[in-house]
């Protein structure tokens, strides 16, 4: 299935943008203004839909003219490109968009032709599928780990490096006790939030056996 690689789904959708000559500000421009201000970090709507690895929204104004002897031609509409890489299946994802991030969906696709609103999520799903393009070739470097698993792995990687550094020079008994505390901290830590700027520091490094700097180093 060209849209899928392992557990990851690659959605490519082109939604024609409304063209209203009487508008003070065109839909395309309004959309750009909205997207420029939309949060890209933990407050992003895509952070709410936890299964999103990466996603982008692009206002595509036109095709490109590469120069003579190629012919010059133009699109009659502008298109909103939505490229997303997420865990799970398409229908579930689109339903989650409709149910969990309705304000942002309205604000974005409200500028597009044929957008049916969100009173009936099933209609939104159908609408998005009618904008969908089949991916001809999809490459995913890691395609078998969910977002949750990825964030957890990154947290553990960072934690372990800190643990190793701080346990330099510990005796075996000290080491075992310190590791037990570290691992407990890992197991008790809640699922990391997506789109944070950095890996959160595990609590075990803030106090207790693992909180000291490397032994003996000034």
């Amino acid at each position, binding site marked *: 299935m060209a849209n899928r690689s392992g557990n990851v789904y690659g959605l490519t959708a082109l939604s024609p943008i409304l063209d209203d000559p009487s508008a003070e500000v065109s839909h395309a421009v309004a959309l750009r203004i909205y997207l420029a201000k939309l949060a890209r970090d933990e407050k992003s709507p895509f952070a709410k839909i936890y299964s999103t*690895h990466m996603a982008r929204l692009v206002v595509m104004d036109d095709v490109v003219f590469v120069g003579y002897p190629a012919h010059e031609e133009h699109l009659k509409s502008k298109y909103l490109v939505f490229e997303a890489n997420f865990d799970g299946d398409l229908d579930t994802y689109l339903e989650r968009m409709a149910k969990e991030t309705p304000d942002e969906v309205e604000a974005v696709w409200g500028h597009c032709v044929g957008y049916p609103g969100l009173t009936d999520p099933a209609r939104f799903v159908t609408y998005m599928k009618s904008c969908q393009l089949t991916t001809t070739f999809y490459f995913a470097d890691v395609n078998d780990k969910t977002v949750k698993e990825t964030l957890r792995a990154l947290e553990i990687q960072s934690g372990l490096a800190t643990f190793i550094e701080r346990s330099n020079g510990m005796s075996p008994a000290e080491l075992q006790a310190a590791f037990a505390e570290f691992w407990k901290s890992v197991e008790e830590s809640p699922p990391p939030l997506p789109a944070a700027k950095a890996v959160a520091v595990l609590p075990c490094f803030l106090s207790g056996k693992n909180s000291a700097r490397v032994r003996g180093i000034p």
Partner: protein
Amino acid sequence: MTNINGKTYAMNAITPLKPWKTWILRGFFFLLGLIKPMQKNLVNLSFIHFARWVVIPRRRFPYLGGRQKREELRYDYLLFFSNFNGTWNQYIDAFSAVLSSGLNAIWGWTEKYPGAVPVTPFKRHIARCQFDTDYYYTAYPYATTNDVKAAHRVETAVRAFAAESKAMQPREFALAYQKLLLAVQSDLGETGEPPVGT
């Protein structure tokens, strides 16, 4: 710079191709999907999280009715979306140096493609065909695909260690811990802010 979020860059490119060439291109992608060794170099370069090529036949731009006019085009279009790590220049330098035959096999069918080598005209062509991202989200902005893969290896190793070493005596534990270090020692690079630059 809206194309960039943390360590990832969202590149979009559109290139025209004569409709009769589209079939050849589709054939190439079909082969690429089947013949894994052809993907080997792409995997070994290891700085793309996700990438996709989308062929849009000229009559298949989504048409939703209403007052939208149907497109009347001569060319089919090849859309390319990449989520990669590193700077724009670094990315294209690497592809030009190492994957030029693969790039030529794909984009060689598009109009006025100058070839992936030498790199300066290639960059100029890409700059013309590239269009900027308005909004870019990533769930792990401070991690490259190398970081992600390393993290998964580390987690697997340390989980196994935690389970196996639970009941060990301290000396046995210390020995097993050394083995853990040896298993993860190449995968502990810190994550964080990316370098600034183009």
